[in-house]
């Protein structure tokens, strides 16, 4: 059952050094506030998982908290490269970053297998690609009925999945809507689930395209209005495209980046989250 907790306590209670953590979101509903709390608490040696690591993973990587990244497309969507990600991979700054790299189809199916508590998933994928040579989480499997050889991908079961949603009720049931990406699978694949929400409502009203996660598959719900900023929450906010563009020059330079994190995350406005 989900406990409604402060972001500080939920992050401290659920995310530990060395954990494999998925903070999912396909541009929409990205849990920035929770990630910033991880930075403030200095939780480190993380394996981060996400189909589309973007600016928030750039921040965690640049802050030196990440040992390994499991992903399929890493970039600043609509802008360009993730400079901290590149610097870590290319130059090992501030620490080397191990990669487990897939295609979107492979990652999506890895989450599906994880949510289904199966050890692997099957897809017609990676054909003719060099990707399988770089990872041990892709193998092949032969259909027992047709003899066709297909790709097998290992299940993803993060220790913790963190997502942002629009609403929870007082019992801790959560609803998200709009682009819901792979969030349900990521949550159900995880050992622990932390959800930040825009607000608590008396009753969740079923929404078109809405996904409901019942309280009994969630560990903590934290009320963090605008907790997806600069990403957005359909019905509550719009994407802060200017921030994504502004991030490019900030992240290009190690010092600028470090100062930004210091001023805006470690001691900045997000500090309020600690007392919420």
């Amino acid at each position, binding site marked *: 059952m989900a406990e409604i907790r402060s972001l500080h306590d939920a992050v401290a209670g659920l995310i530990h050094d060395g954990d494999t953590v998925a903070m999912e979101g396909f541009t*929409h509903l990205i849990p920035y506030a929770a990630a910033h709390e991880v930075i403030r608490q200095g939780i480190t040696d993380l394996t981060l998982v996400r189909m589309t690591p973007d600016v928030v993973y750039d921040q965690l990587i640049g802050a030196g908290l990440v040992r390994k990244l499991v992903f399929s497309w890493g970039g600043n969507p609509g802008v360009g490269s993730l400079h901290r990600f590149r610097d870590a991979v290319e130059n090992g700054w501030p620490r080397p970053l191990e990669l487990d790299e897939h295609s979107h189809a492979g990652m999506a199916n890895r989450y599906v297998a994880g949510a289904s508590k199966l050890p692997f998933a099957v897809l017609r994928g990676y054909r003719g690609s060099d990707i399988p040579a770089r990872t041990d989480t892709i193998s092949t499997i032969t259909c027992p009925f047709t003899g066709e050889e297909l790709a097998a991908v290992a299940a993803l079961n993060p220790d913790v999945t963190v997502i942002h949603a629009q609403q929870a009720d007082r019992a801790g049931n959560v609803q998200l809507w709009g*682009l819901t990406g792979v969030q349900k699978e990521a949550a159900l694949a995880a050992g622990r689930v932390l959800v930040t929400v825009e607000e608590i409502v008396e009753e969740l009203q079923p929404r078109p395209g809405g996904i409901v996660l019942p309280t009994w598959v969630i560990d903590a719900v934290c009320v963090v209005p605008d907790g997806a900023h600069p990403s957005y929450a359909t019905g509550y906010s719009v994407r802060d495209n200017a921030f*994504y563009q502004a991030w490019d020059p900030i992240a290009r330079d190690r010092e600028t980046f470090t100062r930004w994190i210091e001023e805006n995350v470690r001691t900045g406005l997000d500090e309020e989250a600690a007392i919420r």
Partner: protein
Amino acid sequence: MTETPAGFTRDELMEVNAARALAGARTCFVGIGLPSTAANLARATVNPGLVLIYESGTIGSKPTRLPLSIGDGELAETADSVVPVPEMFNYWLQGGRIDVGFLGAAQVDAYANINTTVVDRGPDKPEGRLPGAGGAPEIASNCGRVLIVLRHTTRNFVRQLDFVTTMGHGSGPGDRTKLGMPGAGPVAVITDLGILRPDPATAELVLTELHPGVTVEQVRAATGWELTVAETVGTTEPPTPDELAALRALKAAGKEA
């Protein structure tokens, strides 16, 4: 808009021709960036009924401005249906329901194979990191046909890919069939200089059309391999005023948002 027919850029030639390549298609799996520009322009010009499919889960998006990312809110709000990402890749893409896959690329070789993973930056330098595969390997495998759009430089059009992220035609004809790939693979590479298409016999990319004002020599100089040129090289039609107006309106609306 008061543009004259000659008042267009190389990028606009690329974008307009990329949009034209979508005439007659029913469904298009749209990569972000240039493919998204082309697909949205196609909806505004040659193919108003084109069903845009984005890997974020939207089917039948009808954005009024260029989406800034594949997860743009307007893609969902204007869609016929929004599906979970696993369903998109399994039921819709792998399900063989998409006519055209429209991809960008960092590197392309003579068989329209694509690299978006890493680039070799020379001795003593670490590999340069690119964003990675995204949806491309399975888009290229499963869509009925594939269009590729990118700017034409020797950095992009290379003799040997540093990494094969996404297979186009492999090492030649028959490779796709051998690997059991359902779709026909790349049928055109549209650049800011012209259009390359695979030779039906060899699967090697051949220069078939030049944009107005571009010479074969310019394309050769921008290609990292010894480019085969069709016996008769056509010239693409210049953008019409309507096409240009639609393209610029889309871009302007995207910037405003």
